[in-house]
């Protein structure tokens, strides 16, 4: 580990802490439906959209209606993506003349992008036409992110409102977030990326005769516009197979820093917005503190392991950290940091191949997702996932002191705790169930590239990534088979909506409750004790649930590596 490496990590966190309140304030304006300076330009678009689709943005919705409208919108988006991918061969914008996607791949990919997962069973350059990248995928990067933030707003209202029936209007939340937050940032961001060397053209392949006289084909396309929302919306689906390791997606160390910042930016801001919404910004800072502690712990382990490198190679005379699967312009620190950021959030973009990370360096990304991606997390999904853990944490604290638990002025009762457990239980059930199945059936065992414990890690990582809606991969797994496409597609759908529906039910139930002012016996949810409890609950739940599976994969792999045993 180097001083420069730690400088990068601290600079990264410092910039985000400085941006937390401004971003939080902007999000709060959208949460409240206030007018922003951008309304002068985009207000007519917003109103036009409502008029054409017959929406009254002031009509408040109860949690059931909010959920049904959100679900139906997602089903419509799913259908659009599926149609575009299946019809790719006859649609325009296809300079490489690529064919239609197979039904199972289109099914998997449509779910993947609708659920903000962006798992990619395919390599972008050989599969997706320019039109598919734009109309099939870019649009979902925006709308799945906007859906996540809208859902977080709905849960915030559950905590903030008193004896209310409604938790907001889905269409208004989603549209405002798209028009006044995601789109404007992406326009500026895209220009920055183009200036830095990310292509933005409708052309296809350029043939090159290299300096040595060999032929090289270079694929161009509308990369920058997709790259911007891919990071900002914690989507992570790359234009190219190599994702943000590809020089056309992430050409310089500076674009790399900005990409990492843009993964976390909205997630940091939402913690502040939550505090503001419930009337005490210290509530938000407490949540953020717990997240940052978990994040820095993860970065430390991954950076340490990657910098230490592979002892098997050291014995052969190779010096330095683990560079297999990493790009020189980023080096070990910026690659290790990126890996932890992208899995702490539900982004899933990668700037180095996680499959080639050291066993423990690669275990942290896996464990981050298994914790429920609540360390910052996906846009919206991170904070609502975290609040589910907060409900469990006050419940545990309440058991210890023998009082009805309260959180930010709301009594937490049996119904909320049951729903929170229901939502949280989806993760281990689907991850461990599907991984176990794939470890015994032939179609599952055909997937891994690596042998030994690392092969098991590849399967475990795939289902963890799918259920967690992350989308990163131990890429050696051959996932573009009907078996994996179908199972991973289902895992992504369960992981997204089987969490969302109980979460919205909690929002509805909380909104209906009276405000309970904090008394002398209330457990304080702002101080260090609370932060410690949150960290503890998240680690214990995640640790107890997944440690056995980690022992079979990365931990066994690590022990083999230090013994010099190969597979």
């Amino acid at each position, binding site marked *: 580990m180097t001083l420069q490496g730690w*400088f*990068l990590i601290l600079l990264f966190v410092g910039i985000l802490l400085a941006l937390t309140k401004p971003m939080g304030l902007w999000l709060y304006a959208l949460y409240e439906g206030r007018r922003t300076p951008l309304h002068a330009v985009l207000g007519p678009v917003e109103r036009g959209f409502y008029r*054409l*689709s*017959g929406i009254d943005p002031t009509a408040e919705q109860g949690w*059931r*209606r909010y959920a049904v409208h959100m679900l139906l919108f997602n*089903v419509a988006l799913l259908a659009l993506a599926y149609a575009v991918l299946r019809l790719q061969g006859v649609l325009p914008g296809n300079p490489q003349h690529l064919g239609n996607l197979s039904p199972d791949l289109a099914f998997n990919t449509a779910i993947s992008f609708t659920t903000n997962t962006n798992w990619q069973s395919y390599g972008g*350059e*050989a599969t997706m036409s320019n039109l598919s990248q*734009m109309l099939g995928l870019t*649009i979902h990067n*925006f709308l799945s992110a906007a859906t996540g933030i809208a859902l977080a707003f709905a849960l915030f209202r559950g905590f903030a409102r008193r004896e209310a029936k409604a938790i907001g209007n889905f*269409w208004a939340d989603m549209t405002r977030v*798209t028009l006044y937050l995601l789109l404007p940032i992406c*326009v500026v961001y895209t*220009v920055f990326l183009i200036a830095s*060397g990310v292509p*933005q*053209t409708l052309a296809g392949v350029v043939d090159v005769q*290299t*300096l*040595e006289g060999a032929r*090289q*084909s*270079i694929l161009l396309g*509308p990369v920058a516009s*997709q790259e911007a929302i891919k990071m900002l919306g914690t989507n992570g689906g790359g234009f*190219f*197979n190599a994702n943000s390791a590809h*020089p056309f997606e992430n050409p*310089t160390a*500076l674009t790399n820093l900005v990409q990492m910042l843009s993964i976390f930016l909205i997630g940091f801001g939402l913690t502040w917005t939550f505090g503001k919404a419930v009337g005490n910004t210290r509530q938000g800072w407490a949540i953020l503190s717990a997240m940052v502690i978990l994040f820095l712990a993860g970065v430390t382990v991954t950076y340490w392991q990657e910098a230490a*490198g592979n002892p*098997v*190679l050291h014995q*052969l*005379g*190779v010096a330095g950290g683990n*560079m*297999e*699967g*990493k*790009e020189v*312009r980023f080096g*070990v*620190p*910026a690659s290790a940091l990126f890996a932890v950021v992208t899995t702490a959030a539900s982004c899933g973009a990668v700037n180095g191949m996680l499959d*080639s990370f050291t*066993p423990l360096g690669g275990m942290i990304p896996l464990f981050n997702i298994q914790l429920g991606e609540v360390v910052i997390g996906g846009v919206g999904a991170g904070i609502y996932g975290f609040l589910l853990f907060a409900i469990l944490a006050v419940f545990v604290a309440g058991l210890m002191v023998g009082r009805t638990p309260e959180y930010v002025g709301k009594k937490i009762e049996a119904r909320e705790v049951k729903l929170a457990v229901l939502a949280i239980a989806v993760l281990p059930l689907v991850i461990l169930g599907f991984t176990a199945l794939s470890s015994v059936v032939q179609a599952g065992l055909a997937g891994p*590239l*690596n*042998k030994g414990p*690392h092969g098991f*890690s590849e399967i475990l990582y795939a289902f963890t990534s799918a259920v967690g809606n992350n989308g990163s991969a131990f*890429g*050696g797994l051959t996932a573009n088979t009907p078996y994996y496409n179908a199972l991973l597609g289902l895992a992504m759908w369960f992981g997204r909506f089987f969490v969302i529906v109980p979460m919205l039910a909690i929002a509805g139930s909380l909104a209906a409750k009276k405000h309970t002012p904090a008394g002398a016996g209330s457990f304080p949810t702002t101080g260090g004790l609370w932060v410690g409890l949150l960290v503890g609950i998240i680690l214990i739940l995640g640790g107890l649930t997944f440690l056995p599976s980690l022992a079979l994969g990365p931990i066994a*792999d690590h022990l*083999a590596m230090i013994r010099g045993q190969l*597979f």
Partner: protein
Amino acid sequence: MNQDLTTALRPAIVMTILFAILLGLVYPLAMTGIGQAIFPGQANGSLVRDGNRVIGSTVLGQAFTSDRYFHTRPSAAGKGYDGLASSGSNLGPTSKALVDRIKTDIAAQRAAGVAGALPADLVTASGSGLDPDLSPAAAYAQLDRVARVRRLDVTRVRSLVAAQVEDSMVGDPHVNVLALNRALDAVR
């Protein structure tokens, strides 16, 4: 529930169409127009031309295997530096296939006269398979061979490398191999 469904139907369909037009067509096409107008070089792939011939992209790596040039890293993109098949090896640290491949590459480096500890990037495949760079150490390790084959003074070649080292506080120091080899070709 039924009422919720019927009220959702029209907004779900119409909003999907409207956003598809705005985000799937207007946004990327407008950005393409802006990019082509303001930064045409970068927007079209930062291509490098030698007369009429396109010889590569400054951003993207290409294969160098001749003794006259500084070599780029091993690549897992197709058969090596395939611009249509970016990929890492995805081999894990306990993979026998990985260690065997690296042993072969180490032997090649030793045969080319590289002594001492080998810089890791010289014998490992990058994440993209299209890494345009080398670490300064990996470039310096190739000095003697390039100078010998080109019959150039080693200190001269060393200063060419040193001039190409780029460093920023937010990434690792690196040398763009295409730029370095072009500088090499320019030496008469």
